[in-house]
């Protein structure tokens, strides 16, 4: 199969709907298993941090929520670019589907960070580079959602959102390196791709579980939102009508 056939197929809402339907049960099962298992592991089995005590257990949701909130944004930016360049309708639907999920995860990252900060730093909030740039990420997500609401015309909304999303993507590397570039209360990353991680393996393993669980949850929710959007937008097509109402009930064409 050539790359263009693949691309064309992926761009077809009908094919995407059918293909994603087969993935849903696996994504659902695996993400819940990893999230719940990782949470129990991190809450009950891992020893407390020698410095922070038990408050460090918030890491098992704070880090996954933050990482996936950023990953979701990059996915949304890529979808926006694909929509602008190739005018793929499906990419616009994916972009629209991601915004509320990303906003929710960013909200969790900010809230769990604040609650973790209180017993650890002695404050709920500081205007430092990391926290402020994540707050901007939250507003970017809300902006994309508001922009979708503001247009009556779907194509115009998608185009405006794609531009906003792509321009806003500059915030992602800022978030990532903010703890290195500026003096910050927020600690630098403990998990390193190059060199040795500065987190004990016994604490790292449950984090890997909840982190991968959160990525899978994001994929699952993204598919659910996109599928609802497909049904909504393709309501005038025969396949969606057959799918929702059943083939027999429809009667003559």
């Amino acid at each position, binding site marked *: 199969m050539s790359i263009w056939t693949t691309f064309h197929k992926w761009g077809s809402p009908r094919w995407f709907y059918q293909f994603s339907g087969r993935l849903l049960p696996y994504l659902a099962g695996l993400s819940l298993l990893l*999230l719940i298992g990782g*949470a129990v592991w991190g*809450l*009950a*089995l*891992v*020893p*407390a941090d020698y410095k922070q*005590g*038990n*408050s460090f*257990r*918030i890491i098992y*949701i*704070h880090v996954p*929520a933050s990482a996936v909130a950023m990953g979701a944004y990059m996915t949304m930016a890529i979808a926006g670019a694909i929509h602008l360049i190739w005018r793929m309708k499906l990419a616009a639907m994916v972009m629209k589907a991601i915004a*509320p*999920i990303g906003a*929710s995860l960013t*909200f*969790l990252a900010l*809230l*769990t960070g604040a*609650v*973790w900060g*209180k*017993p650890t730093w002695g404050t709920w909030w500081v205007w430092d580079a990391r926290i402020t740039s994540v707050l901007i990420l939250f507003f970017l997500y809300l902006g994309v959602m508001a922009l979708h609401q503001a247009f009556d015309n779907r194509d115009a909304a998608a185009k405006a959102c794609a531009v906003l999303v792509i321009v806003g993507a500059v915030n992602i590397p800022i978030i990532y390196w903010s703890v290195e570039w500026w003096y910050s209360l927020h600690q630098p990353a403990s998990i390193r791709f190059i060199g040795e991680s500065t987190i004990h393996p016994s604490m790292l393993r449950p984090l890997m579980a909840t982190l991968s669980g959160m990525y899978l*949850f994001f994929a699952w*929710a993204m598919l*659910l*939102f996109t*599928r*609802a*959007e497909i*049904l*909504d937008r393709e*309501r*005038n097509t025969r396949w*969606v*009508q057959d799918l*929702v*109402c059943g083939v027999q009930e*429809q*009667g*003559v064409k």
Partner: protein
Amino acid sequence: MYFDSLGDFLAMDGHGPYVWFCYGVTAVVLGGLLWEARRRRQSAEQAVRTVVRRKQASTGKE
């Protein structure tokens, strides 16, 4: 199990409220996303049914 008793587990040496609040809110938010996805799907299906009903009504007239 790291803790000696259920009481210790819930208290977490005074950090219990912070930790449990975070896990509770996360469960509510993730559950809320699934709920919202379901709501969107149902409203989309409703929209499809409306289109089909209109189509059937117009073909019935012909």
